[in-house]
């Protein structure tokens, strides 16, 4: 199980929680498990999210492993100019 920190405005989709626990070993599994457990997260995940694993931000890396006890933060999809 990994603890995933959400940004505050997602708490309405998770019963008020900004930290959720998911059985996920990769970025892709994290997204899949998150939608299964909290269907209200699906619109945001469909729009796009990034995941920070131990401080490194990943935008689309489905197979990026999530080490045990990693710090995992869900973030909006990064865009730049």
């Amino acid at each position, binding site marked *: 199980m990994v603890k995933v*920190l959400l*940004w*505050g*405005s997602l708490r*309405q*989709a998770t019963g008020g929680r900004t930290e959720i626990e998911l059985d996920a070993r990769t970025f892709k599994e994290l997204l899949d498990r998150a939608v299964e457990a909290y269907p*209200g997260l699906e*619109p*945001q995940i469909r729009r796009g999210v990034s995941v*920070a694993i*131990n*401080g*490194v*931000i*990943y*935008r*689309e*890396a489905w197979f*990026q492993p999530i080490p045990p006890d990693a*710090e995992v*933060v*869900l*973030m*909006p*999809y*990064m*865009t*730049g*100019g």
Partner: protein
Amino acid sequence: MSFDEYHRREFRQVGRRVPRPDGVDKVTGRALYGADMTAPGMLWGAILRSPHAHARIRSIDVSEALKLDGVKAIVTGADFGEVEDESIRDIRDNCMARDKVLYDGHAVAALAASDPRVARKALKLIRVEYEVLPHVTELEDAMKPDAPVVQEGRVQETVPPGMSANVTSYCEFGHGDLEAGFAAADHIVEREFRTAATHQGYIEPHACLAAVTADGKADLWCCTQGQYMVRSVCAAIMGMEASQLRVTASEIGGGFGGKTTVFIEPVALMLSKKAGRPVKIVMSREEVFRATGPTVHSRSRIRIGMTRDGRITAAEARLYYSGGAFPCGTVEMGAQAAFACYDLQAVRSQGWNVLTNRPKEAAYRAPGAPVAIYAVESVVDELCQHFGLDPLEVRLKNAARKGTKSSYGPTFPDIGLVATLEAAKAHPHYAAPLGPNQGRGISCGFWFNFGGNTCVTLNINPDGTVSVTEGNPDIGGSRASISLMAAEELGIPYDRVRTIVADTASLGYNDVTDGSRVTFAVGLATIKAARAAIRVMCERAARIWGIDPEAVEWKDGAAVPAGPNAGKFPPMTLAEIAANSFRTGGPIAGHHEVNADGAGVSFGVHICDVEVDPETGATRVLRYTVFQDAGKAVHPDYVEGQMQGGAAQGIGWALNEEYIYGADGRLQNPGFLDYRVPVASDLPPIEPVILEIPNPGHPYGVRGVGETGIVPPLAAVSNAVSRATGVRMTELPLSPPRVLAAIRRSRATDGA
């Protein structure tokens, strides 16, 4: 692993100020920009634009225009088919209105004619019947419950109930107990700020040439930050397969984020398809202002508590951005960036996006961050003034560093903010004396940086030179930087390498040149491609020598035997291996494809001295110094250019630039005479100071440098003006009338 780790090394090529490969072409006029492309039988496209800020299109009659001799095709929104993806649908509808026009300048029809004069004449013959609707161009008005609704049905599930239908998204970030934090403060400042929309101000207007053949293939030449993005978006809008559309990027006369989308390309393709001939469209400057992306305009409320010794105890931001007539996520980036420079126990930032009858926002360097950090850094400066504390010392005391839980969630790895602040503190500029009516402002800045999808092919030519093919338009010196990194890895001189930017049919997909990603991600892919080529060259040398490939290593541009049992052979240079390549297995190349992650965040600190004329309110920038962490400056001239350019644009944003709308909802200043960007005579020399705190996620330690430089100037200038005048400024731009009015209000209050 999608990225390599940094290992300390001595560089031989990287870090040199070598001649730029595009320099001669650009100073001799040989470089081909978007408007330089021509084709036999080419037609000229022109676009009819709405004179209304908000109106329903009742009918479009093109019959008279079609009768004009020389007019070959006309398109309207009805010519474009359905698109499933919402974001591409928005781009389609921005390129050509369908049922409603959503802002002054919105395209309603386009035609292709035998010459530009005929095209302009024909535009006047198109009859559009509008039902004019109430409009709203100001963010605050658009948030009112009874405001005209710009687009129905665009509200995300994130928006709390009870808000105007123009509020399309809401976001919130942060951690800790805010109320406890504010209770621990010795003083709290709460202020509201406003910033005007500004344009990226690139010198080259958008231009393209489209040629669609009768069998459905197409070529498109255009000025863009991303030819693959153009291909994807245009193919979707045109209902084409991507393989049938080849897009070639021209040299680019600036982009700064504004060329990360399309405005005219689908229109030119549709006109060419209908006319059966190539069609060229070149925007006028007025069209660029009225119909391409400026940045957001914003309102924000910032509340920060501080102890009397300068420790921030709590910080809160409420940000309202409007990206024009279509939903945009820029406020999410602003809300995340707002407090990223600080190590905070209690922090919250909230953001709302609001629709207005203005052009669709396009990215502009570090999109969202400058206006949020402007407001935050202004309040931090005011708190420093309140307690009589040194603003750099306060920032050092509160600076984010390795191990800080960032305001947007993740814990920072190695970052360079403290080193950057210390460099600023030690610089002579910070201690230089100031005269009457002069003030000094400082500000920190932050940007995320990112990597993204990247392909590179590196060919070892038979004569021992090297050709690198990459797929990102060079907007800030990337060809030189890529060549330097290839030369570094291969161990050969820089002038043996030439890097070119490929069209979409010649190389795999590359993300847009944005997010300060190219030197990081394309550089990483180039290093990997060079390593792949080195592996082949070592194998060829091993076969020539008759030894095991594992017993060969690459050193100083040559294969050498490695280990005690490898035998004694003189080094075999890259040129020698290349010369024999046809006889040893064929041409040698390396390539690498990656969706790169591991881009390191970047911080900057700016110091700005100004003098304000108390009689006119005019501000003159006297001295300006930029400190920025580049990770590793691959080509320092270009890095300094990015830092200086970001500062210059930020100074313009702070002092002069703004979109001004009239009561009729029309843009009042669509030209460089009335929209004032700083020119050379407005600016002092901008001194860049590069710091190099290696990014652990890149083999050479590279971080992006293209965006951070525009973040600090807004607050650095505003803080300097506030200190020079003794009046806290809270609205940009700091145009002379606004500064003069603030001074007079302050005098009136003091005298009362």
